[in-house]
């Protein structure tokens, strides 16, 4: 069932410009020079209930602007956002109650208060029933084992502990849509894992739609099933994670082990000389090598034969493209275009 529809969103800002001339700053006080910046340009997509969508893009691509428009904090210059078939009224409390929002770099908890006090305030603001409130707290304890933190003021928690509490606070009213803007930024691996478990659980058990922006590919691999790729304000890819990797995952890795010592550097030079884009590195010792190559320029088996013609291969293993390499390729491709 389609839940959220974004149609033809365009967002333009006016940005003050420095004058490259004598007394430019002074002149700018009386006659400022602005330029129009298009943060989003004709972005359209729809999201079904319960989907887990990743918003990808380089810094400044327009992801955060899109998140702010989706949560009603910014108004688009043109275009509409509809929720369950109705164009949203950004000021409506009913709309705001359907969203849960986590900004990785901005706390939503009251800084000086124990987490429980913030949660109780949110319970009142979002009119959460006692039953739902207790259920969500129990779930938090089951998934993170960190209920003891709830009596500590937010300012005394570590970043990881606070992020978990932020997610709990954003989900306390069991929203329909959970928007997460870089929730795992600066977190260690263990906390990242807890954050992902918590988000996935909320999605599976309560059918909460998840919209996530992150520069950490592991977040996307563990949480999302769909990718929206934004480049310079335009939506340039909208499909499943699997499809994204098959379209943009051109860099494969050939891992070989050999009976004799080899010089990987020489192999790299040879491959580049032959026009095959790739690089080679000894992973652990000199009797093995990892060669990353562009599969659109050379077929994997042809690559194996070529390496085999250079030295005797004992074993080989071809590894498909990772999400990270696919994203890197997508960024570089669109940066060139």
């Amino acid at each position, binding site marked *: 069932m389609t839940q959220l529809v974004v149609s033809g969103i365009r967002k333009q800002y006016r940005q003050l410009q420095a004058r490259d001339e004598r007394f430019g700053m002074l002149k700018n006080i009386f006659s400022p020079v602005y330029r129009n910046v298009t943060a989003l340009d004709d972005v359209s997509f729809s999201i079904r209930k319960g989907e887990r969508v990743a918003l990808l893009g380089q810094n400044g691509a327009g992801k955060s602007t899109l998140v*702010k428009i989706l*949560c*009603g904090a910014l108004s688009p210059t043109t275009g509409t956002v509809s929720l369950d078939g109705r164009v949203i009224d*950004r000021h409506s*409390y009913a709309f705001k109650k359907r969203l849960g929002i986590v900004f990785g770099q901005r706390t939503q908890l*009251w800084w000086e*208060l124990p987490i429980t006090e913030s949660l109780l305030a949110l319970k009142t603001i979002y009119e959460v029933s006692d039953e739902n409130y207790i259920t969500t707290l129990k779930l938090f304890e089951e998934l993170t084992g960190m209920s003891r933190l709830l009596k500590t003021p937010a300012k005394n928690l570590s970043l990881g502990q606070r992020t978990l509490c932020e997610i709990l606070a954003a989900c306390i009213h069991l929203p329909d849509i959970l928007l997460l803007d870089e929730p795992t930024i600066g977190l260690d691996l263990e906390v990242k894992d807890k954050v992902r478990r918590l988000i996935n659980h909320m999605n599976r058990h309560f059918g909460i739609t998840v919209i996530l922006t992150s520069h950490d590919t592991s977040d996307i691999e563990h949480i999302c099933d769909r990718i929206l790729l934004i480049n310079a304000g335009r939506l340039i890819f909208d499909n499943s994670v699997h499809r994204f990797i098959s379209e943009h995952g051109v860099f494969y890795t050939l891992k070989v082990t050999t009976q004799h010592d080899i010089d990987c550097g020489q192999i790299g030079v040879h491959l580049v000389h032959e026009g095959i884009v790739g690089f080679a590195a000894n992973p652990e010792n000199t009797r093995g090598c990892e060669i990353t190559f562009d599969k659109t320029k050379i077929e994997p088996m042809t690559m194996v034969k070529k390496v085999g013609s250079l030295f005797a291969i004992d074993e080989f293993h071809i590894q498909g493209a990772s999400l990270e390499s696919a994203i890197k390729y997508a960024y570089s491709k669109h940066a060139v275009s």
Partner: protein
Amino acid sequence: MTMITYRWECMFAAVSSLFTVFFAYYLWRAVYRASTTLSTQGFEVTFAYVAISVVLLVTFNTSAETNISRSIISGDVIRDIVRPLGFHDSQIAAAIGTMGLRFLLVFIPCMTVILLLLPHGMIGARNVWLFAASLSGSFIILLHIDMLTGLVAIKTEAVWGVRLAKEYIVSVFSGALIPLYLLPSSLSKVMLLLPFQGICHTPVTLLTSRSMSGMEMCRLLGMQLFWCVVLMLVVNRALKRLITKIEINGG
């Protein structure tokens, strides 16, 4: 609740207010001893006027201007925008919480000391009721002047300087520095038309004046109510415009 975390700040405010009360007592006693023709009002009335004014300013100081300007300049305002709460309402609710604690820790002890220093029977029961009725108006006016200051500070990006200027203007125009009846009559007439008089002059006059007619009391309370409504409407409109501007131009 936030204020409870900073309870020491509240305690210091209470101690410094008590100090100011004693300072006002000795200062104005010395002034009255030096000049017997200062005013038709006696020493006790002037002391009560100044001391209670200072206590009111400290009790109703909620730092709303700092909270608003800081939240908008830092971008934290997005937290308030995305919540199902009006920005103006949430600011008032936060200020009431802050004021509540200051009321307990500053207002009650300081008022007790002031009343002990005043002669017995100076304040009647009717005065106390009128004073209590005017306190909410005093709080609303000061809070909304603070909010307007916060909005100006966002524009100028000089929060500290604008706040200092506001504090000076409020203490002079409200009568907390020098009672309005001691100023030249032409100046005090103008000041009595401005909103600031509703912060200190109105409640303190209602508390200390035993000979005031019912009509005059109604005029004072009516003027205070008028400024409460005007300031609330102005601030509400200004905050809405500001939030819309943030929504259009970005954080």
